[in-house]
């Protein structure tokens, strides 16, 4: 096992684990904004409890996101030093802007958002302002990191200068960097993914309460809102996904070919519904819808989608070493789409029940919502794997190969060591996280604040016996 492969595994592990948390903060931030806004209008303490409850869940995801996010910041230098010195000019300016504009905004106002509920100097409006700032901050951080990542997918606004180790991508147009060809589609697609994640947690928790007949008011408010919000977002995601896929075709045709494993260029290019890829014999065993890919890409079922046999220079076959691992990209892409389908089916059914006023007592649907939180997770992470593995063998598409980006001085021992450390850390972290999340959900919204206060101080007195 060489340091390059291990570094890739480590990066995938770090970023995938990290991606459990920030998208949820983004999705929940929007939900908190809505419920706190409702509270400001109604001034109903029960509405406040809904907002406070989601703030507490938010806090947990936020803390985990911050803790795991630090890893990414140093990973570029640790394992990808050549990549860092190559793209520092562009990538660094974007990351510095992310830190200064987004992270500070979040970190500054999160204190008020979490502690402000209890601080007499913080009125409801000031608190709401802080919630807005945290929400804006978390969205900005997503936007900035997506600008950076989209630049790696579809580089623009730069020129390559210098030779050897001093070779670097040098900024020529900041505007072109920030508006690189894939950035708008990818930001929309990712943020919608995050919002869907948030609303599915809301649905999952609410369905659980409803099944246990707990927190009636909470369920009334959240279940109805959640179903509609989820439906709207899933439809929006369909439109965004369609546009994103076409963007991938125009900007990264190789990745596009890998997503549907198009080996041969021919008319009526099909979409596979489910199946597997035989990379050796370059065949796809699957249930196909003929002409669908051509139709969706060109609005004409006849136009052939270019396959690997014509994607090389001047229409020659693309050499094997320039192709991404087709089978993995094909599967992750299809898993993402299938999860969306499952969510869409479930939510459409729930909308129908809501219309017939049967949703609140439909045990089976509610039961399905509880584990359904896994679907958007699978979808989000599979989507990112498609985007990142589909870009291989390039780290910066068509500019720098992944193998040229790795730190030359890295030893196998070092990376195995750090990989073991990360795995151990993450297992521990994840166990504690799930434990805490479960506790917060079990505790639920509700307990009035003074009641909680006595509960708190009583139990602490019992255990610590006053102390000396």
């Amino acid at each position, binding site marked *: 096992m060489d340091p390059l492969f291990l570094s890739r595994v480590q990066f995938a592990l770090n970023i995938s684990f990290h991606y459990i948390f920030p998208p949820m903060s983004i999705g929940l931030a929007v939900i908190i904004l809505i419920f706190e806004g409702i509270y400001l209008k109604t001034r109903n303490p029960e509405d406040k409890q809904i907002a406070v409850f989601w703030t507490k869940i938010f*806090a947990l995801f936020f*803390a985990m996101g*911050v803790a795991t996010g*630090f890893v990414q*910041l*140093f990973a*570029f*230098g*640790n*394992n990808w*030093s*050549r990549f*860092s*010195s190559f*793209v*520092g*000019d562009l990538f*660094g*300016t974007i*990351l*510095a802007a*992310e*830190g*200064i*504009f987004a992270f*500070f*905004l979040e*970190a*500054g106002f999160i*204190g*008020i958002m*979490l*502690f*402000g509920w*209890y*601080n007499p100097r*913080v009125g409801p409006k000031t608190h709401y302002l802080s919630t807005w700032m945290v929400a804006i901050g978390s969205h900005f951080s997503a936007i900035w990191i997506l600008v950076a990542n989209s630049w790696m997918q579809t580089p623009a606004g730069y020129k390559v200068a210098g030779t050897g180790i001093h070779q*670097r991508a*040098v*900024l020529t147009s*900041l505007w072109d960097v920030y508006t690189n060809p894939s950035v708008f589609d990818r930001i929309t697609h990712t943020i919608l993914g995050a919002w869907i994640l948030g609303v599915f947690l809301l649905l999952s928790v609410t369905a659980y309460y409803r099944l246990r007949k707990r927190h009636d008011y909470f369920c009334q408010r959240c279940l109805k809102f959640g179903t509609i919000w989820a439906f709207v977002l899933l439809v929006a995601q369909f439109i965004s996904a369609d546009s994103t896929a076409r963007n991938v075709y125009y900007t990264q045709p190789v990745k596009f070919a890998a997503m549907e494993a198009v080996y041969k260029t021919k008319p009526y290019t099909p979409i596979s519904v489910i199946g597997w890829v035989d990379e050796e014999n370059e065949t796809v065993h699957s249930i196909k819808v003929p002409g669908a890919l051509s139709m969706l890409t060109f609005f004409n079922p006849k136009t052939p989608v270019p396959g690997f046999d014509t994607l090389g220079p001047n229409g020659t076959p693309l050499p094997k070493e320039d192709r991404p691992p087709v089978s993995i990209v094909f599967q992750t892409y299809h898993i993402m789409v299938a999860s969306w389908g499952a969510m869409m089916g479930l939510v459409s059914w729930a909308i129908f029940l809501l219309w017939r006023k049967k949703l609140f007592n439909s045990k089976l649907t509610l039961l399905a919502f509880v584990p359904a939180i896994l679907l958007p997770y699978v979808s989000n992470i599979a989507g990112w794997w498609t985007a990142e593995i589909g870009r291989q063998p390039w780290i910066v598409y068509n500019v720098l190969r992944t193998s040229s980006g790795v*730190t030359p*001085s*890295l030893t196998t021992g070092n990376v195995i*060591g*750090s990989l073991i*450390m990360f795995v151990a*850390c993450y297992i521990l*972290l994840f166990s*504690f996280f799930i434990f*805490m999340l479960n*506790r917060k959900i079990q505790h639920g919204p509700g307990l009035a604040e003074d009641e909680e*206060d006595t509960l*708190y101080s009583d*139990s*602490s007195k019992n*255990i*610590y016996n006053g*102390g*000396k």
Partner: protein
Amino acid sequence: MEEYFPLIWYCFIGFGVIMYLVLDGFDLGVGCLIFTQKRDEDRRILYNAIGPFWDGNEVWLIVIAGSLLAGFPIFYASLFASFYIPTMVLLASIIFRAISIEFRSKIVHKKWRTFWDINFFLSSLVLSFIGGLFFANLLIGIPIDNNFEFVGGFSDFISIFSVGVGLFAITVFLMQGSIFLLFKTEGELHQRVQKIAKFCSLLFLLSYIAISLYIYITFPIIFDNIFSNPFLIIIPALQVICSILTIILVHKNKSGLSFIFSSLCVAGLVFLYSLGTFPYLLRSSLTDVDGITYLNAAVETQTYWVIFIVAVCGIPCIAGYSIWLYRLFRGKVKLHSGSY
């Protein structure tokens, strides 16, 4: 004008480092002091003293790393590639430190809380120590070749000097942390904190003198810049004065002023570090190899324009709402159901 851009960015990063050490310094210090308090209630006050602030303080670390990547990418790449193992330890402590603060309060159970207290203490301690280790090795240089590739091993980072500086870093943060707690505590706890702060600020002065003497004897090259211009001797002199003033002010229980002077001590350390290494960002400890300077790691003018604009727009905003935040949560810590 444009030839000064790298220098201006160098100064900006220096400013970032000062902000990080002053601000995250106090919450790291509070972490190292957690076991000075035995009662759960007192420990909770310590956690809540830094509760609303620590996250924002840590963002300065992100700003430093992002600024290095943007303004001196070769240095950023070489630094973190070389310090692979120390960075991993640093990351593990950052992760567990953040989690300790969040998780500790959530369950009222003695073993649970002690577990997270240990976690918080150790991660704060290790983080401070590794910070010192970084500075120590940057000061004396590490084995990098002409391509700025690391050619040494982990053992190159460990020496009497680097361990000494690591411990010194802990004393710096202990001073910051204990003085910060003067603002936040009252009553009996306050009196205990004051005693601790007295001890810590004295400890800082003594270890500062010890480490300076050690450097002077073993690595005189670091004093080259300072002795080249006798006027610069004023900096270490001012530093000693600030440190003595800190001790006196803590004794008189003037929390605000003593925090200002201890922060000046911290800023002075960054000035001294910079004088000791300038123009190098990373010295090579190999003979006949020139290290990374702020000039040979510099990027194009246009990139500096971009990051200048980011910094000029961003820093006033950060200053604005940081001040607002510190004002909102000023005063003594009062525990309630939403506290840590």
